[in-house]
């Protein structure tokens, strides 16, 4: 997935990736501490590597690092909290 890092001249700012954060109930999803959406719904984000956490604190693991590149809406990056 990470092989598609783009050519040197390409501005990765100008594309979008897709992330799905799965949890047993709806919670806010935070990327590097900033709210970007809610769990259990595919989210749009610029390509990058993010530290993902949820609102509240009764979930595990406490955070997950995810690299978003080469995803699509039918094949989002999926991470699961329990």
């Amino acid at each position, binding site marked *: 997935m990470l092989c598609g890092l783009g050519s040197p001249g390409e501005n*990765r700012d100008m594309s*979008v990736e*897709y992330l799905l954060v799965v949890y047993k109930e709806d919670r806010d999803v935070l990327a*590097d501490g*900033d709210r970007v959406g809610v769990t259990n719904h*595919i989210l*749009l984000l610029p390509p*990058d*590597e993010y*530290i993902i956490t949820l609102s509240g604190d009764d979930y595990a693991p406490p955070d997950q690092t995810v690299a978003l590149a080469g995803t699509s809406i039918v094949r989002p990056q999926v991470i699961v909290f329990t």
Partner: protein
Amino acid sequence: MAAVGGCQSVPDFPNLPLAAGQANQPPPDIVGTDPDAPVILMAFSGGGSRAAAVGLGALHGLAAASYPAGSREAPLIDQVKVVSSVSGGSVVAAWFGFAGPRRLDELNSRFLSRNNMAELEWQAADPVTWGRLLFSSYTRVDALRDLLDHQLFQGARFADLQRPGAPLVVMNATDMASGEVFSFTPQRFDDLCSDLRQLPVSVAVAASAAFPVALSPMSLRDFNYEQCPGSPPNAGWIKATLTLPLPRYLNLEEYKRARYANALRDPKTAYRNEHYLHLLDGGLADNQGVHALTEALVSPHSQTGILPAINSGRVRRVVVITVNARSDTDNRIGADPAVPGLLKVVNTVIGTPIDATTAYANAGLQDLLDALKSAGTASAGGAGQPGFAGLRVYGIAIDFDQFLPEQHQLQTAVKNIGTSWSLSATELQHAIDAGTILLRQHPCFQRLLLDLKSPVGFPDPALTRRNCPFEDDPTEARVASNPGGTAPGRSPSAPRR
């Protein structure tokens, strides 16, 4: 004045530190409660008074349009939520933010119709000015700043831009030390531990328009390098971006932004000393204001909150209008066998890279808007139904090359308006008309009005749909009528990279 002002002097820095324990107030909620109300973002390019007048014309076009919102007709101009601007574009952006839509036309009488160059030249020749330049902290950019305050803002500060319903105005300059875009936003001023609300609006406009050599840089202080009494919020994304292994590969532009923000916030780990920021014309780094507009639209760390609103379905209609008022005068270089002189070479060295960078940035923005547009019409299927399903994105890039053949006279007239702070009455009217006409006849602006069920009459709604199609349009509406073979969803005017 240039020779006298060429000596280095320490200016009176116009920005103040945050008060003890304070941070800059983030912008109020931009998104609102109606998901189908359009969220309009605009970007005004540089180009002196020409750019300001074209931007004014585009705003006129929005003010003349409305759409049914409940029991009333809502003016489209009230849906402008973010305005990013550079140089001359910052004059109209700041005035719009300060005075509001009902007082837009005062920009004409107060500034655009006046011979501002004569006033600046008179000041430059005044021995009092020479004395100030030599013996005080007065610098050449202060002359422009004084003119702006005298004619438009009368000392108004950023706090005065925060009217109810006012758009977020983001004026952009270029940091000489790093070459980075410096945006006058609450977030950036948190990075400086400086109070944006207290900063005069004229400082930001003058910084955004501080054309090199003609004007001196506008200088600010970064209070993190002294003692920061304020308490700006923690920006976790900066540390994450700089310490994780992959951001510098996956998104180099975001990595550089994090590195720059870190240099402003943390002198101990700064990659470059940014104690004093010397700001020049924003056009050196980005003459369209695209960086700031993109950040406002899709950065997860932007205080606009637009990305989470898109992800949760609170915004279903995004309109991005870029107004490129670039100069394209008939320089007659190709008609002359003589080797061009130094002045023409210098003009080319300055103008060509700016135009090329702007074109590249605009094309990149169009790619982003196309990606968002596709996301809105794609079906995910299975688990995780996206909140952004049904998102409509209207990319409206306005450029002087979009005039129709029968508008050749107006096109020639506006392309030959020079870049300065003075316009003749005819030039002013041509530039305003250009902005209004180019917006109104843009296929995706017409499609927006159609989709909003605006009372504006359309000769042929089917043609309007074909000229600015969406992937989920009924099949018969997507039959191409453009012999250029425009790809579905892409504005006919946008160049491909």
